[in-house]
């Protein structure tokens, strides 16, 4: 089973999950190729987190079949660095100890522009720096699947843009399959090749971004409008596109 889907980072068919009476998702199909950058959009409570935990092996599905390529790694909303270990040790969290491992850590830190902080304690880093360390820690494993769980949500706007560029650059270099979970439609369209929407316990939308990346041109405007509509949000700049009966929820939710 493990090696049947060589090209796929994720291959899930008919996955279901309930918590008691609550259906988190049902009959969910998801395929993500290696090297592909996919964004998963969904409101809070739509089951994104549960799906993510399953992909990371922290939870299991109730029904269906799934295969996730390894190695897999993740960057979470919080950096989740070990405060008692220096930065370079944190980068090596998933790496078996060897003589060259510090050099590997330095190279990984170099990629995220933090080799000067290798010996720092995580407690002394800024939020953006800590998140870059987390990214280095995830990429050093050369993962087949990299899960990004709202990794930019806690960053300030400028740091977020820089971090997004960094992620895009490093994705192009390392080519892992990326599943980016986010609330932010603009972020999803800016980074991903394909955007999914998780709603009402299933994936209701699966759209390639293609030439719609530029938010100023018509395809970009249309794609965004469609995603906002699917998420049940009235996009501020597209009041006419709102489908009848859409529920208004805040565009950016506080986490």
């Amino acid at each position, binding site marked *: 089973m493990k090696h049947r889907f060589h090209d796929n980072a994720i291959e899930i068919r008919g996955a279901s999950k309930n918590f008691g009476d609550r259906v988190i998702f049902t009959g969910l199909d998801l395929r993500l190729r290696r090297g592909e950058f996919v964004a998963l959009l969904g409101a809070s409570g739509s089951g994104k987190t549960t799906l993510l935990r399953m992909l990371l092996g922290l939870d299991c599905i109730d029904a269906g079949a799934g295969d996730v390529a390894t190695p897999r790694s*993740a960057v979470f909303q919080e950096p989740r660095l070990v405060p008692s270990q220096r930065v370079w040790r944190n980068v090596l969290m*998933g790496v078996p100890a060897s003589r060259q491992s510090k050099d590997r850590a330095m190279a990984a830190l170099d990629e995220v522009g933090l080799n000067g902080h290798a010996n720092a304690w995580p407690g002394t880093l800024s939020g953006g720096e800590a998140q870059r360390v987390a990214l280095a820690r995830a990429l050093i494993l050369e993962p087949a699947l990299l899960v990004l769980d709202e990794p930019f949500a806690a960053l300030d706007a400028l740091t977020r843009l820089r971090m997004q560029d960094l992620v895009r650059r490093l994705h192009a270099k390392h080519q892992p399959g990326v599943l980016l979970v986010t609330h932010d439609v603009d972020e999803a369209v800016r980074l991903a090749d394909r955007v999914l929407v998780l709603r009402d316990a299933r994936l209701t939308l699966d759209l390639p971004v293609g030439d719609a990346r530029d938010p100023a041109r018509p395809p970009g405007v249309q794609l965004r409008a469609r995603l906002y509509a699917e998420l049940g949000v009235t996009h501020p700049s597209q009041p006419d596109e709102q489908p009848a009966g859409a529920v208004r929820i805040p565009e950016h939710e506080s986490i």
Partner: protein
Amino acid sequence: MTGLAASPAIQVQRSGRRQSLHVGEQSRLRRGRLVGAGSTRVMLPVLVLAAWQLASAYGLINPRTLESPLAVGQALIDLTRSGVLLDSLIASFNRAAAGLLLGGGLGLALGLVAGLSRAGERTYDALLQMLRMVPFLALIPLFVVWFGVGEEPKILLIALACVFPVYLNTFSGVRNVDPKLIEAAAVFGMTWPAIATRIVIPLAMPAILVGIRYAMGVALLSLVAAEQVNASSGIGYLALNPRAALRTDIILGVVLIYSVLGLAVDVLVRVIQHFALPWHRNLGGNAR
């Protein structure tokens, strides 16, 4: 001030000058306060000592009730000269160290196991919480019955007293490690033993050291109690020595030694904390 308010330019200038003056004044004040704080701290004890010495010298206090501070000092000097004090300190230190090692080690092991595994917690946490509430001094007669009047009951009493602070702090220290961190480590393929030794225990270390600090204090306390039961050495014995029964100078000297030891223990653990937990020092406002 109301007259000045009519002329904003002057006001700005004045407030600017005032501000720069204020900064200088404040830093000087702060320095002054530091010195002041130090001298205030020392002042009261010195005053009390002086009053005590004067009252003793003028015969206001009966030396049988309370010897003068100078006499206490003299008693300590005599005890040091004769070597009795050093012998007593060594005997007491050995007992305290043995008890602390035994009890603290047990508390550490139990706390780690209970913190890391629900099974361990279920097995003995309730029992330990019950035992914790027993005033350990109440066990002295029982310990004498069980272990006689040698070294064992003394060391075991100190050990027993040391188990709980170390156990409780270790347990809560382990349980307070951020579960998200452990989850991340699991995602990155770390095994359970590696997570326990490289993440959980180091992060629980500050709490464990707090427990050890408490235990050291408790060891000192139980030393006093233990050494007043059929001891023939140690500082507790020194205070209760029949020959010293009427020597309030020696008793007070021993009390002084206890307080100095208490202070020393505290400083020692703070120093250990400082050097053993370099990451904890600069875990400032942006701690995660």
